[in-house]
């Protein structure tokens, strides 16, 4: 690592970077040709090229969102971004075959170790594509498919054609259009009928190069009565110039299926994280978004669930931590499109050192949906006098039988709490760290233990030097 990089990193532990050894690197900037080149490079069928091009044209025409943090959004320089970068010619199935630099990075991030201990499968994406993927043999034998999306396109084009863009059409928003145009990498996961995958499967997304754009595309289909827990993590080096991460994630839970999707997003503070995540839950299916946003410069992400079948259930638990120079604009959207559907939304945010966190939520109950229940709890904790927290809840309730609860609170750490903990030997920083960890506890307890411990450590580090 160079001294210069060290300076920029500060407290962020994952801010290191490798020398850039790309095998293919597109010039910076975006055009229809870039989109076609990506498709050609990947040897895609024509239908995919067509979707990409349509999406690109839509992206160009579509105006920037006029909500959220417009100032920051309008500063994105799409011409300075690299839209495709291949750093390894093959997606390997053994870590030994992954190029050394990249392998070392994932070692530092603890991925191979976690894989051996407690994961059912792993894909590791570095820049635009996966450099590694694997799945436990027993899962493969049961018919579980867990691949990076590019390999998925090659091996199961008919499944992907059937579902791609059905939950999130490219025209959904400007960034879903951008992703559809230039997508590369991501995960393709299919769980056959009746199969419960006990160990979580994980995808890790790493950006290494400067001014990189990462546009992974993930599609998860849980067939009838199946269940799976998918975990994703993401980090990037700290640079003084911006990178862009804009993913699209589509989940489909068939009748009686359950998908839990857990994220711990810890991008460096030069990354724009503009992600569209949406799930469809059919009859009696359950979708759980467990969404943690710790890093990035600006995150705009609102995991959504379309409760399409009777008795379906949605659970969205999200936390956001906004430190210096960060804006976490996050939330949840749940659409009760069928009767007797239920949802539970818990959102927790912390703002510190001038950081800003916003909760943006939508709850919809359509006129024909009877007997729906929903509970929303939003808690914000502000750690000093110059940080900010906002709440933008929207409710569209079309059926009078709906049973809704909404609680919101904004609080500060009290001097009595700090004094109490300090009188028990905690330094002021350690006391703050403990309080913050406790505040996020409803979220961390839902994570696999290894992630929960890591997140707690991370937050304790964030609290160091928090009090002047």
């Amino acid at each position, binding site marked *: 690592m160079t001294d210069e990089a060290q300076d920029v990193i500060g407290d962020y532990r994952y801010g290191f970077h490798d020398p850039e050894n790309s095998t293919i690197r597109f010039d910076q900037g975006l055009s229809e040709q870039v989109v076609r080149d990506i498709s050609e490079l990947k040897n895609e069928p024509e239908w995919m090229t067509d979707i990409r091009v349509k999406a690109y044209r839509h992206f160009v025409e579509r105006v920037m969102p006029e909500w959220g943090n417009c100032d920051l959004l309008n500063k994105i320089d799409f011409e300075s971004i690299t839209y495709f970068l291949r750093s390894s010619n093959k997606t390997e199935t053994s870590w030994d075959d992954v190029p050394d630099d990249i392998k070392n990075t994932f070692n530092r991030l603890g991925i191979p170790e976690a894989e051996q201990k407690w994961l059912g499968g792993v894909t590791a994406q570095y820049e635009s594509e996966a450099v590694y993927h694997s799945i436990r043999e027993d899962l493969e034998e049961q018919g579980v498919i867990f691949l990076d999306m590019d390999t998925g396109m090659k091996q199961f084009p008919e499944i992907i054609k059937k579902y791609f863009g059905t939950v999130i059409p490219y025209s959904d928003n400007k960034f879903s259009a951008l992703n559809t145009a230039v997508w590369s990498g991501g995960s393709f996961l299919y769980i056959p009928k009746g199969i419960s995958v006990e160990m979580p499967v994980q995808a890790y997304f790493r950006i290494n190069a400067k001014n990189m754009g990462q546009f992974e595309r993930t599609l998860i289909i849980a067939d009838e009565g199946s269940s799976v827990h998918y975990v994703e993590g993401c980090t990037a080096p700290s640079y003084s110039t911006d990178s862009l991460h804009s993913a699209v994630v589509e989940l489909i839970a068939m009748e009686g299926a359950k998908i839990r999707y857990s994220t711990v997003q810890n991008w460096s503070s030069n990354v724009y994280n503009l992600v569209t995540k949406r799930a469809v839950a059919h009859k009696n299916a359950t979708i759980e978004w467990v969404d943690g946003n710790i890093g990035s410069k600006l995150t705009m992400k609102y995991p959504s669930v379309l409760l399409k079948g009777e008795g379906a259930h949605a659970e969205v638990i999200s936390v956001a931590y906004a430190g210096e120079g960060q804006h976490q604009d996050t939330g949840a959207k749940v659409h009760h499109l069928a009767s007797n559907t239920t949802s539970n939304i818990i959102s927790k945010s912390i703002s510190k050192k001038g950081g800003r966190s916003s909760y943006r939520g939508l709850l919809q109950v359509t006129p024909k949906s009877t007997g729906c229940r929903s509970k929303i709890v939003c808690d914000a904790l502000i750690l000093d006098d110059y940080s900010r927290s906002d709440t933008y809840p929207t409710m569209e309730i079309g059926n009078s039988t709906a049973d809704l609860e909404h609680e919101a609170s904004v609080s500060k750490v009290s001097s009595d*709490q700090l*004094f*109490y903990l*300090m*009188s*028990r030997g905690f330094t002021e920083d350690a006391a703050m760290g403990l309080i913050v960890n*406790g*505040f996020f506890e409803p979220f961390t307890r839902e994570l696999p233990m290894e992630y929960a411990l890591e997140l707690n450590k991370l937050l304790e580090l964030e609290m160091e030097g928090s009090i002047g």
Partner: protein
Amino acid sequence: MRVMAEEILRIENLHVSVEGTLILKGVNLTIHRGEIHAIMGRNGAGKSTLANVVMGHPAYVITEGSIFYKGQPLEELAVFERARAGMFLSFQYPAVIPGVQVGTFLKKSVTSVRDEAPKGRAFRKELTSAMEQLSMDKSFLSRYVNDGFSGGEKKRLEILQMLLLKPHLALLDETDSGLDIDALRIVAKGINEVAVDSACLIITHYQRLLDLVKPDYVHAMINGTIVQTGGPELALELEDRGYDWLDVTA
């Protein structure tokens, strides 16, 4: 004879104000190792202020006088350093820390004060025995610190911490309030155990705790000063006669 015992706390001519109002107006008090002192007085006399200012609560400002802990001026020590040096305050109203389990909190606190992580098995043993002594169920450990605790549960958790941290100076602020007689007995047992080898300052309204924890000295505090000092008999007299007979301003 206790005269040779180590001096733990010395308070000299202490004046303290809170938000600009003078609460303590010249308190003098010295406590040695092995001594139990009780301070009694009406609401608002300044008893809790004394306990909080000794522990270092930032809202209390010393305007005159000094506090020494083992001969060292306390103003040099931050709150967490006071804890690590062996000072302990049992709070009248302990703070709620949502989402933090009692077990985690105790382990971290003991680690901070002892300056090393306690050995897993030894610590569990120590913890189990202290909890049994206080008739606390194991399920306490997975509850959140003081969250939804009854008054009695809060006080027991305070005493449990005191047993684990083994302070040299224990300040007990209204530890008896809100306790039924059974709980009071249990808590008193804990205090007596710690008091053998430490300096103890008990702040209370009532005589009843002092039946169970025998003080060496009882001080009557009125309007920010100690107006009378005596033995255990003073507590009985205060219980009997109230404070008016000592109150020169009344």
